[in-house]
């Protein structure tokens, strides 16, 4: 029966270590992660080193996680609001458990049929969620009752306000978050979210908890009740009350250092963290091929029994636990090499533990003793997990880790076989056995014996967060650095424009760093994985060069991650053992990365190579086929590239100094001029030695390279023959892209023979890389991409120092291949080059910030005034004591309040002004508030006519007011006036002004809008929602999805917040809005619900836009993005021109905002116009007559000509129209409506998908508009004619013509007596003649009056000058056209 339990996965978060890799790095490096508690944990006033009071602690030092921990709620399917209200430790435990399972290679699928348990050690201490709960439920009542008790005359409403404010400040708690406070959820939530069906529970054995959890786990596994168990411990957010306990016990270290086993140890420091191990029975793990970190051999636990005190450790109990564990393990005690001690740094604890160790292990081989608590503090119920993970990693990696602060070991240690080491030591023995102690208060002791599995595994270099491929990335774009800064400060991402910023792992600290670069306005290219370019090198016209590197001393690319990501075959020779293999590896890598880059949508404008990198360049440009190069490399056995006795030496200087160094020496030359500060010398050994000495004497770094070859020098001349033969056989083609030669500093020739010559010259002549880079810069190259790994980027940076350029590598040994590609993609994106960054940036849900502290609350200074004003009333109390107290209090607070008020009056500013730039770049959401939706991806923003919604205008005004009176909130808005639409394309900068008069602030956007706002220190208590239910609710004709899909609302995604629409009736409508991201979008969506009511209730003039509101009242802060808000609308009245309603917006059952008399203006539209407005690609304003289309503007109700213009015309067409004078404009527009419809109709009849009017651009000529854009090539022509608000148009594939002549006002000059003979005295005969002649003249290009005569036909069909013209009466007009 297998008793060993394999550790197959690890996960943790401890001070200074967000993950296991960093935890081990810290342990190995002896990093002290103890620091001071910030005020965000608990307030400074609790710290007093001289006090013994119960609410004072004498040390601030501890091991802390960051005060705010990001948590990816979406990854685990947890609603952000629920996450905010939950205990932080539960959510972090969930993440750590998922990490441990990931590490074990167990995904959801492989877990599905296994019994997976979760057993965690966790204490029942006060945590932030419980603190919040206690505040909400008990402390708020306590506060109110004390206020009532001490000041009975206090206005009960004031007490309620204070209580409510206190509860508000305490944070989120409600039905959706309450469940998150049940302590066992630390384990159960893991089982729930990860869908595990083994037992899941927490155990509490104080500081032994985690090891007791491991003991349970081992039992479950040995008994076969579980297949996998996650075991560990959790201790996060130790509350000030917890600190108080340890201060009262005197257990906290006054020196702030946990110095386990040191003579001067004076106690512990409190730590926090979470550690978990994924465990599986050893035989199963081996059978499943799992990664095995270590094998747990034995576990044991024991209680102290009846001891002198529950607080004093008892050696006998500890010994018993150890004996039980070793008995269970069946391992020779002499094999023990490492004990991870409980080691709390308390005198009694350390003494007892050393006695226990002496008793159990006695004499024997030397072993190391340590405690990770010296680095991260005492993590209490998680301590056993911290120690066990440390021991597991120690046996796994074969390292004896150090322990800190034991400068003067306790005397007892001398007598034991144990010693504490201050620096890590290798642990090379084949059997590596370790043991871990965890002893809990009250006398519960636990011990685990473990051993390494197989050989020690070297530590892979741990990646910094910014070097990991799955790091978060912030990308931001704007028109200018200033606009970008605004967006950055507003916490936005995305945007458009040439000024761009990318930050990997955007922690606040790193964003602050990036911000500095933006403020400075100068490019920042890559250091610290931050890229910023104020205008984009490629956007400004710079070219992209791909550089293929040659052989260098270092070649260790990481390619597996890239191969896996793109499904590419990885290069073979990535760990070469000789020069030829390196050559193959370099070429393979170049080809591999070339393919990866192309998958990313990248392409070069030109190509160059360094040394054999030119061969890669020949492949990349299509000059050489891959197969031929493969065959060549295949044949290149060891020795092909090598030249015996010839050395390379790299010198840190320019060619001039290098020439001096080789002056007078034989058989030596400069083979590579790499950049201004590096050349490579190639020569016989003796000459190289002399040159090297000369250089070092001159202060130049000079290193002999570890490979021998004579490439690029005359010394290779004797070796070129095989190469010449190979190239002679190659089928060479001209390069499809410019390929540049570092031999000639010119483009490669096209002729195959010339190429062959150059390839041979390349082998024996020096590389002129410096000159080549300078030349390409002169040719316009600004971005240099190293398609490989190596030094070329450094060469470029050196050569082009001070010039605007980007040099970036596609592979970088210090980070994963995928992370470096991600960096490359970001660098390119920032410069405006083509690249699909999304293919590399991991998609992650938004994170929720978990605050790990629970500092004291403050209600803000404003409420002090409320209290002092009303305590005056307290003096009326009968009780003499209370009366006196009230007098004193009242006097005190009055004088205080007076002084404060006077000060405020004097110092408070009365006026604030500022400016705000608005555009679709500064506020990308405004793309989605464009009145005239255009085809997807339409590139001219002005055609959409993006406009600031009135509700965003209100938000801007509110912001201005809050700038003037910081810390106050706006509770009421009235006298709203909007003067004109605030159109944001092109970009506009507006002036904001706020002026204060007492509690009122008048805020305005100069020329655009104005409002009067009442401000207060706090929101008033919200009244209950007051609207009655709708009397006869029915569902709306369309649902929320159709509302946007069918464009009943013009709004794009960022303004589409309505997720439930209806019910409605004649008296109102309701809906649910999921607060979208656009500024002001929540109220805008309320307006949409109101607007929709009109659309559903009326069939004329359905388009309505807000024009004013009598009163808006707010009762709490704006609900967060994603919050579901119930919007209730009650119609006050509708008439021909307006619509009015009251609105209530209810968030989580509370009234958030109430609006009185919201008025919409109704715009004139008939069903026809309304359909065109909404879906112009499917509808037309003109009417089809078969041969032509006619548009009669008097037949429609339209909001305005401007609306029709924007619906039908593109940017340049609108400019042409506005330039055509007031009279011309009408005709211009009418003609184009008819003409565009005629073309769209014909094309659609030909099977072309529906077109928007802007997709049918027409030239500016008034009489003969010409089709532009892609349609110009179709051969379609359009003819138009216009008279008095009526336009006719005809689209044809030949030379069409059309005329429109009013019957009543014929130009007699057209008509001769003979012409009328074809008509039987018809009253409109003259008009018909004029129309027919006009058409014929158009066809002939002649004057219709003189030259032409009617040759035959009848009233509906005339032949003029050989041209057949058809005629028809159209109301008061004759329409004539020719069909050929």
């Amino acid at each position: 029966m297998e008793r060993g339990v394999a550790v197959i996965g690890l996960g943790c978060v401890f001070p200074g270590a967000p993950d296991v890799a960093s935890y081990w790095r810290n342990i190995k490096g002896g990093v002290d992660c103890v620091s001071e508690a910030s005020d965000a944990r608990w307030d400074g006033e609790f710290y007093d080193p001289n006090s013994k009071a119960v609410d004072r602690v004498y040390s601030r030092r501890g091991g802390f996680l960051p005060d705010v921990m990001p948590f990816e709620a979406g990854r685990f399917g947890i609603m952000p609001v629920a996450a905010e209200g939950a205990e932080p430790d539960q959510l972090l435990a969930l993440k750590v458990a998922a990490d441990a399972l990931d590490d074990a290679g167990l995904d959801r699928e492989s877990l599905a049929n296994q019994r997976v348990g979760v057993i965690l050690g966790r204490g029942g201490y006060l945590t932030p969620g419980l603190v919040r709960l206690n505040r909400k439920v008990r402390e708020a009542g306590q506060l109110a009752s004390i206020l009532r008790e001490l000041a009975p005359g206090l206005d009960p409403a004031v007490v309620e306000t204070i209580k409510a404010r206190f509860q508000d400040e305490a944070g989120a708690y409600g039905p959706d978050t309450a469940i998150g406070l049940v302590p066992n959820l630390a384990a159960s939530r893991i089982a729930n979210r990860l869908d595990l069906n083994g037992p899941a529970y927490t155990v509490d054995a104080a500081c032994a908890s985690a090891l007791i959890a491991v003991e349970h786990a081992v039992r479950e596994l040995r008994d076969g009740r579980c297949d996998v168990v996650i075991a560990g411990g959790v201790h996060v957010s130790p509350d000030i009350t917890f600190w108080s306990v340890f201060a009262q016990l005197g257990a906290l270290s006054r020196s702030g250092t946990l110095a386990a086993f040191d003579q001067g140890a004076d106690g512990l420091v409190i730590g926090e963290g979470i550690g978990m191990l994924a465990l599986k029975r050893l035989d199963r793990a081996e059978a499943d091929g799992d990664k095995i970190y270590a094998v747990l051999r034995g576990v044991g636990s024991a209680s102290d029994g009846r001891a002198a005190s529950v607080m004093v450790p008892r050696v006998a109990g500890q010994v018993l636990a150890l004996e039980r564990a070793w008995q269970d393990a069946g391992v020779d005690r002499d094999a023990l090499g490492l004990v991870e001690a409980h080691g709390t740094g308390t005198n009694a604890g350390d003494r007892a533990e050393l006695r226990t160790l002496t008793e159990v292990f006695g004499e024997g081989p030397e072993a190391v003793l340590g405690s990770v608590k010296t680095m991260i503090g005492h993590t209490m119920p998680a301590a056993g997990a911290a120690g066990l993970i440390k021991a597991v990693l120690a046996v796994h990696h074969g390292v004896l880790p150090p322990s800190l602060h034991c400068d003067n070991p306790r005397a007892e240690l001398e007598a034991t076989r144990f010693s504490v080491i201050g620096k890590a030591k290798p642990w090379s023995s084949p059997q590596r056995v370790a043991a871990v102690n965890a002893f809990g208060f009250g006398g519960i002791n636990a011990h685990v014996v473990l051993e390494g599995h197989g050989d020690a595994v070297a530590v892979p270099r741990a990646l910094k967060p910014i070097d990991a491929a799955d790091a978060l990335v912030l990308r931001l774009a704007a028109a200018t650095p200033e606009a970008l800064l605004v967006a950055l400060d507003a916490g936005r991402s995305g945007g458009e424009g040439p000024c761009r910023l990318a930050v990997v792992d955007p922690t606040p600290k790193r964003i602050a760093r990036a911000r500095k670069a933006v403020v400075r306005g100068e490019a920042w290219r890559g250091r610290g994985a931050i890229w910023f370019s104020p205008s984009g090198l490629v956007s400004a016209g710079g070219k992209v060069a791909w550089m293929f590197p040659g052989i260098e001393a270092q070649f260790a690319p990481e390619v597996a991650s890239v191969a896996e990501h793109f499904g590419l075959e990885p290069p073979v020779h990535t760990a070469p053992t000789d020069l030829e293999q390196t050559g193959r590896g370099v070429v393979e890598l170049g080809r591999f990365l070339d393919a990866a880059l192309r998958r990313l949508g990248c392409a070069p404008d030109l190509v160059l190579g360094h040394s054999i990198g030119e061969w890669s360049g020949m492949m990349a440009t299509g000059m050489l086929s891959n197969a031929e190069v493969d065959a060549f490399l295949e044949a290149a056995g060891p020795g092909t590239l090598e030249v015996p006795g010839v050395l390379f030496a790299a010198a840190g200087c320019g060619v001039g100094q290098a020439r001096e160094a080789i002056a007078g020496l034989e058989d030596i030359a400069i083979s590579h001029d790499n950049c201004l500060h590096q050349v490579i010398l190639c020569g016989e050994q003796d000459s190289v030695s002399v040159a090297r000495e000369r250089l070092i004497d001159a202060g130049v770094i000079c290193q002999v390279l570890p490979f021998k070859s004579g490439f690029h020098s005359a010394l290779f001349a004797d070796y070129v023959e095989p190469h010449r033969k190979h190239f002679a056989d190659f089928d060479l083609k001209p390069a499809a892209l410019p390929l540049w030669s570092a031999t000639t500093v010119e483009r490669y020739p096209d002729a195959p023979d010339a190429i062959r010559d150059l390839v041979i010259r390349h082998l024996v002549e020096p590389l002129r890389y410096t000159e080549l880079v300078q030349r390409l810069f002169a040719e316009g190259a600004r971005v240099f991409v190293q398609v490989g790994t190596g030094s070329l980027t450094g060469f470029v940076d050196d050569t082009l120092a001070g010039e605007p350029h980007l040099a970036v590598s596609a592979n970088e040994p210090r980070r994963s291949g995928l992370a470096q590609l991600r960096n490359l993609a970001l660098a390119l994106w920032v410069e405006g080059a083509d690249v699909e960054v999304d293919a590399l940036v991991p998609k992650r849900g938004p994170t929720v910030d978990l605050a790990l502290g629970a500092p004291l609350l403050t209600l803000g200074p404003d409420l002090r005034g409320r209290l002092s004003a009303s305590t005056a009333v307290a003096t009326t109390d009968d009780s003499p004591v209370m009366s006196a107290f009230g007098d004193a209090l009242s006097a005190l607070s009055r004088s205080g309040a007076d002084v404060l008020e006077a000060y405020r009056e004097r110092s408070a500013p009365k006026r604030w002004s500022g400016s705000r730039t608005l555009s679709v770049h500064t506020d990308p959401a405004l793309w989605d508030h464009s009145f005239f939706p255009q085809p997807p991806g339409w590139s001219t923003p002005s055609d959409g006519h993006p406009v600031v919604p009135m509700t965003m205008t209100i938000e801007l005004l509110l912001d201005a007011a809050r700038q003037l009176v910081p810390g106050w909130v706006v509770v009421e808005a009235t006298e709203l006036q909007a003067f004109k639409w605030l159109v944001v394309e092109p970009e506009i900068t507006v002036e904001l002004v706020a002026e204060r008069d007492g509690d009122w602030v008048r805020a305005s956007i100069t020329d655009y809008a104005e409002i009067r706002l009442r401000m207060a220190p706090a929101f008033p208590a919200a009244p209950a929602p007051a609207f009655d239910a709708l009397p006869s609710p029915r569902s709306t004709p369309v649902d929320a999805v159709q509302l946007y899909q069918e464009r009943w609302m013009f709004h794009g995604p960022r303004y589409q917040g309505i997720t439930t629409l209806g019910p409605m009736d004649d008296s109102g409508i309701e809906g649910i809005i999921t607060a979208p991201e656009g500024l002001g979008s929540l109220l805008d969506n309320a307006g949409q619900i109101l607007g929709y009511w009109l659309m559903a209730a009326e069939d004329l003039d359905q388009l309505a836009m807000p024009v004013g509101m009598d009163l808006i009242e707010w009762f709490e802060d704006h609900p967060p993005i994603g919050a579901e808000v119930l919007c209730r609308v009650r119609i006050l009245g509708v008439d021909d021109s307006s619509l009015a309603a009251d609105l209530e917006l209810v968030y989580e059952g509370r009234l958030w905002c109430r609006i009185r008399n919201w008025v919409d203006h109704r715009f004139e539209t008939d069903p026809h116009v309304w359909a065109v407005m909404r879906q112009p690609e499917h509808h037309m304003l003109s009417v089809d007559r078969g041969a032509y289309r006619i548009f009669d503007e008097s037949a429609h109700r339209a909001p305005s000509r401007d609306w029709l213009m924007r619906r039908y015309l593109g940017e340049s067409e609108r400019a042409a129209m506005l330039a055509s004078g007031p009279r011309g404009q009408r005709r211009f527009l009418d003609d184009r409506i008819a003409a565009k419809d005629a073309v769209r109709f014909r094309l659609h009849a030909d099977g072309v998908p529906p077109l928007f009017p802007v997709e049918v651009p027409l030239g500016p000529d008034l009489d003969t508009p010409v089709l532009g854009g892609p349609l110009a090539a179709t051969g379609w022509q359009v003819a138009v004619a216009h008279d008095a608000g009526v336009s006719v148009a005809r689209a044809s594939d030949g030379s069409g013509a059309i005329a429109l002549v009013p019957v009543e006002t014929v130009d007699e000059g057209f008509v001769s007596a003979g012409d009328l003979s074809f008509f039987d005295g018809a009253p409109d005969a003259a008009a018909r003649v004029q129309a027919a002649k006009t058409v014929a003249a158009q066809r002939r290009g002649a004057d219709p009056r003189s030259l032409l005569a009617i040759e035959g036909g009848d009233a509906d069909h005339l032949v003029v000058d050989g041209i057949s013209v058809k005629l028809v009466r159209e109301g008061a007009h004759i329409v004539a056209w020719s069909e050929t």
Partner: protein
Amino acid sequence: MSREDTLQILAGFIRDVIGDEWDDDMEVAFDTSFSDDLELESIEFVALAESVQAHFGDHVDFVGWISNLELDQIIALTVGEVVDFVESCR
């Protein structure tokens, strides 16, 4: 002069070499690695060597020391190792 003083002098040179992309949040400590932490390119290292050599003069053969290191040693080099070297020349 103490190790700490030498560290500060080196930190100054490193700041100069990094130039515009220096940020005050970047820390130069004894265990700071030139390659991993400071992301110094080999060419930047040449510039650093020039400054170091010029400052400490001939009795500190920095260039000779560097020239005799293996490449992977240079890549793994920490600021502390350079400090130790400079100190060893006293």
